[in-house]
């Protein structure tokens, strides 16, 4: 029994030591974020460093993080294959690199972490460019843009913000629409709801004159609901969506930027729109209100 005791104890101490060691190491690494970027230029032996363009080419596959549940941008079809606007672009990247594409399903919250640890080469998951993110990852040129849209009944279609003066606008709490109208158009009466379904129901019931949120969202909804139209397709600050790579992975970043510029010459993203988004949005959406070619954003 004594012997058993001793063996068990030492085994336990060993296991614990490893666990604690790992825990401390990981906790300490969050402060070492910036150093990861620096070491990436020093060599590939550093922890979690992304693969360079040459590494990707010689390995024969590029690993791209996409959404698997955000139709029609990144989703999995009934045959189990990845589809969507982002995926269409990803496949083209693979083709032009001359390698296979391996898709990794990512979640909004883990996108940055996947890049930082080099578990994916590129993130193509509806990644909106903003200041905060740009500090931890490198964004390439944008390939899409989103803004606010306003949907209203056909009978009293609202095509200009001025028409909203004194009328009731429905918004969902915590969205960019709420912030935008509170700040820039205090004259518009806002009716706020916690959930998207509530906002749509309120619009259907006529509790408000119009509803505003991301244009991709209202455009798709208006298509499914007869009698409603998106009168204002693009409003407020324009956010862009771009591919992202690990900070400091300049080779891959430059290649992506060149790729986006080259693809612009053949109007690739308009074709992408036709293939992936048009079946959902139909003719209701002007491709130019979503698509960005060659990374050039026109207001």
């Amino acid at each position, binding site marked *: 029994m004594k012997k058993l005791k001793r063996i068990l104890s030492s085994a*336990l101490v060993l296991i614990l030591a490893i666990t604690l060691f790992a825990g401390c*190491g990981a906790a300490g690494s969050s402060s070492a974020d910036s150093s990861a970027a620096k070491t990436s230029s020093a060599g590939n032996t550093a922890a979690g460093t992304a693969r360079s363009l040459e590494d990707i080419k010689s390995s024969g596959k590029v690993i791209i993080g996409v959404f698997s549940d955000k*139709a029609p941008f990144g989703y999995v079809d009934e045959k189990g294959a990845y589809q969507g606007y982002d995926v269409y672009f990803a496949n083209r990247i693979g083709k032009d690199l001359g390698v296979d594409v391996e898709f990794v399903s990512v979640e909004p919250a883990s996108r940055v972490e996947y890049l930082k640890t080099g578990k994916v080469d590129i993130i193509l998951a509806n990644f909106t460019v903003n200041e905060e993110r740009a500090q931890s990852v490198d964004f390439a040129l944008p390939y899409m843009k989103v803004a606010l849209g306003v949907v209203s009944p056909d009978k009293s279609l609202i095509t200009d913000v001025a028409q909203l003066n004194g009328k009731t606008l429905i918004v969902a709490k915590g969205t960019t629409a709420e912030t935008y109208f509170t700040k820039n158009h205090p004259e518009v009466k806002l009716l706020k709801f916690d959930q998207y379904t509530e906002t749509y129901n309120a619009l259907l019931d006529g509790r408000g004159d119009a509803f505003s949120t991301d244009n991709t969202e209202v455009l798709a909804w208006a298509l499914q609901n007869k009698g409603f139209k998106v009168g204002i397709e693009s409003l407020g600050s324009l956010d862009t969506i771009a591919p992202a790579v690990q900070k400091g992975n300049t080779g891959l970043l430059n290649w992506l930027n060149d790729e986006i510029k080259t693809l612009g010459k053949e109007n690739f993203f308009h074709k992408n729109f036709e293939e992936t988004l048009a079946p959902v949005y139909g003719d209701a959406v002007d491709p130019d209100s979503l698509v960005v070619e060659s990374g050039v954003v026109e207001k």
Partner: protein
Amino acid sequence: MQDLGIRVLFEGSNLLRLLGGLWITVKIALISVAISFVLGIFLGIIMTFKNPVTKAITRLYLEFVRIMPQLVLLFLVYFGLTRAFNINLSGQLSAIIVFVVWGTAEMGDLVRSALISISKHQYESGTALGLTNLQVYRYIIIPQTVRRLLPLSINLMTRMVKTTSLIVLIGVVEVLKVGQQIIEANRYTAPSGALWIYGTIFLLYFIVCFPISRLAGRLEKRWMN
């Protein structure tokens, strides 16, 4: 629209994909449960030692795992190890490691409580009969402990099965994620599909967890006699 919902379930290979996702869920849960139950029993025995060093260490381990949400542990192993030591584990392996670390701690505590719940005179009577320490454990303590342990460990087991829904955050596509993928892919064509898919997932979890509880109930009954 109502009748469109169920169609989603049988479209393409959707049902097969759901079952594939279930297999991943079950595989990870079963491997983790098996390993952590074995380790947990040893840990539980160690926890009953009077030695202050082992007591402090096991206590620290248990509290650390209990306080840390499983999600944080998953991120620590999957992303943290890569960052700190460039150890690149797959999502599934990371998940199993985390579930074993967590399961062992919880199981250890269950074993400990079951062991100390057996009154002192059981040990003393055994020794008085001339049994060695090992024999006391083998013939008196462990059989009683296992019976007390069963309902608690089944509870832990089903909890582990259900917690696998977190591993999608480290890129492992399990049954719940497959379900969400199917729902989202059909969001515009069949909005009522969500109800059917979630219903099916509920059924699948039930099919996995129910036999475990039933088996436990049966064993308990048999041991009563």
